[in-house]
């Protein structure tokens, strides 16, 4: 038996993905062996990340404030949307430097086994964005186009949606679902799926930049 505070930290570390009990033990001893400031800095960083980081109001990516850095960037093409499952899937796409549009983070993928249906994902929000375009960013100074008091004053409308859900069974089904819905609701919009330069069953998050870049170049219409 170890003192309770040690047990608590070991338990907390073991809950992290990829950390087993042995690593948790090692991390705990490491924290103990370091100066107090290090522990305080770590604790502050942990608390701050939860307090300061929220969801982007537009795309549901992680954001500090109302909008994420991508939605705030005027150079990003608002007529092009890339749909991903989680915020973690944005980074690998960004690293390819192939993509200049905005994102839409679904918050998961369809998975009846886990009770995840269409209503549990940000799908309605996606369809609305495609139909109406993103609301303008007041901070950018251009102001609302039509001053009727609503925020959804409509920016430029979306012309293409790239569905970059993971090439897993769930991700594929989600892509097909989105494809069918958009064909019905916004038939003029081009919907494409990342070409599978990706190995089947692989997660976007773990794909290397070259394959992902190739996948982007070779995306196909669904």
């Amino acid at each position, binding site marked *: 038996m170890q003192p309770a505070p040690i047990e608590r930290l070991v338990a907390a570390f073991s809950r992290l993905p990829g950390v087993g009990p042995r690593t948790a033990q090692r991390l705990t001893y490491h924290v103990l062996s370091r100066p107090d400031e290090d522990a305080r800095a770590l604790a502050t960083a942990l608390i701050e990340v939860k307090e300061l980081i929220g969801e982007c109001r537009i795309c549901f990516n992680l954001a500090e404030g109302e909008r994420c850095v991508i939605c705030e960037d005027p150079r990003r093409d608002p007529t092009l949307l890339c749909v991903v499952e989680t915020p973690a899937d944005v980074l690998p796409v960004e690293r390819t430097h192939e993509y200049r549009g905005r994102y839409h983070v679904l918050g998961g993928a*369809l*998975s*009846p*086994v886990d*009770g995840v*249906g*269409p209503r549990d994902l940000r799908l309605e929000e996606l369809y609305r964005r495609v139909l109406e375009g993103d609301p303008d960013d007041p901070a950018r100074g251009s102001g609302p186009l039509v001053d009727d008091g609503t925020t959804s004053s409509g920016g430029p409308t979306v012309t293409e949606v790239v569905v970059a859900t993971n090439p*897993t*069974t*769930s991700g*594929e*089904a*989600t*892509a*097909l*679902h989105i494809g*069918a819905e958009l064909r019905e609701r916004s038939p003029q919009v081009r919907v494409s799926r990342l070409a599978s330069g990706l*190995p*089947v*069953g692989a997660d976007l998050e773990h794909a290397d930049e070259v394959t992902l870049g190739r996948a982007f170049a070779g995306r196909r219409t669904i």
Partner: protein
Amino acid sequence: MAAVDRGAATRPGGHGLHLGRLRVRDVRTYVEADVELGPGLTVVAGPNGAGKTNLLEAAYLACTGRSFRQASDADLVRRGAEAGNASATVVTRSGPSVFSVGVDPQAPRGRRLRVDGTPVETLLDHPSRPRMSVFLPDRMVLVKGGPALRRAHLDQLLAVLRPSSSPVRRAFHEALRQRNALLGSLKARGVGVERAGQELQPWDATLAAAAAGLTTARRETAEAIRPAVNVRAAQLGLAGELEISYRPRASEDPEEVVAALAERHAGDLERGFTHHGPHRDDLAVRRDGRLITRFGSQGEQRLSLLALLLGEADVMEEATGSRPVLLLDDVMSELDADRRARLVGLIRERGQALVTVTEAGHVPGAGDEGVGLVDVVPGSAVVARVAAGAPADAPPADEDAA
């Protein structure tokens, strides 16, 4: 002497891998066993309950980390012992390699698997692992029983012969699980067929793509083994043509599968699961057009299963360059003297085999040079008298009939 025989003699143990030394400690009946296996046939003899099957099981355990008869850790460890171990020296083209499996029912992290002393997560995908092909009396359900086991068997074969089809097989099972879960929830929510159809549509398409791919892979695998199994059946003296045929439920065209699934939406919703697809396939084994499952005698069913295993071993050897080690438990019973001699002749031709019998005399040629003999003495718990050497040229099968 036929060219095949000479070939086999110059390549003891076939082309590839075989087991050398097998060491067992505190597994099943054994306090300790230490057996040097030859590259050809080894006869494991002893009275009922002596521990013959246990020895085969230990060999399988050492090379796969699993038991071939759903056994828990507590079942495997010798009564009265705390932990057991089975290890096998595997002879590969690049030298020997030691596979070892530690079993301790108390251990929280399961069986301890090692290759050459290095812990590994699984032995199953280790490149030096010898494949094992097992005949157990209770595996007769493969020819006697329902289609589920034959499907599973075909898929195991698929994994060996067409490893590239593994993702499609996994994707199919995953899509099926998801679609069935969706059907269950739609049914529980009382959603109407039309509305349900919309929600099912992406899963129909996902399932269909995988189903069509799996059907193709299974058909090609069944076609690949058919000729070899047919040849082996004739050599084993099974009268009439033995024919393996794949009976798929679904089309190999995804569009057609989607249509077939859509047609069944109402029925699927009612019962809450998917009725159409390769999860209902069968592999039919027929002799002269009649299903062996229903019309075969005991001996004929046994010979059919042996023909299947031997034919598959041929195809695996051709595809992977190494022949599976045959573990044949209690295979001689129900076979007449002529069929026994034929079987022994065939397994001595190539590859490694361990064959259990109650009396060594039931294996024609058991005393021959090059045939190993392991006498399992009941109660002693230690294996005695081991004679093994390089396999001699196999005698023509029928000359040896007792």
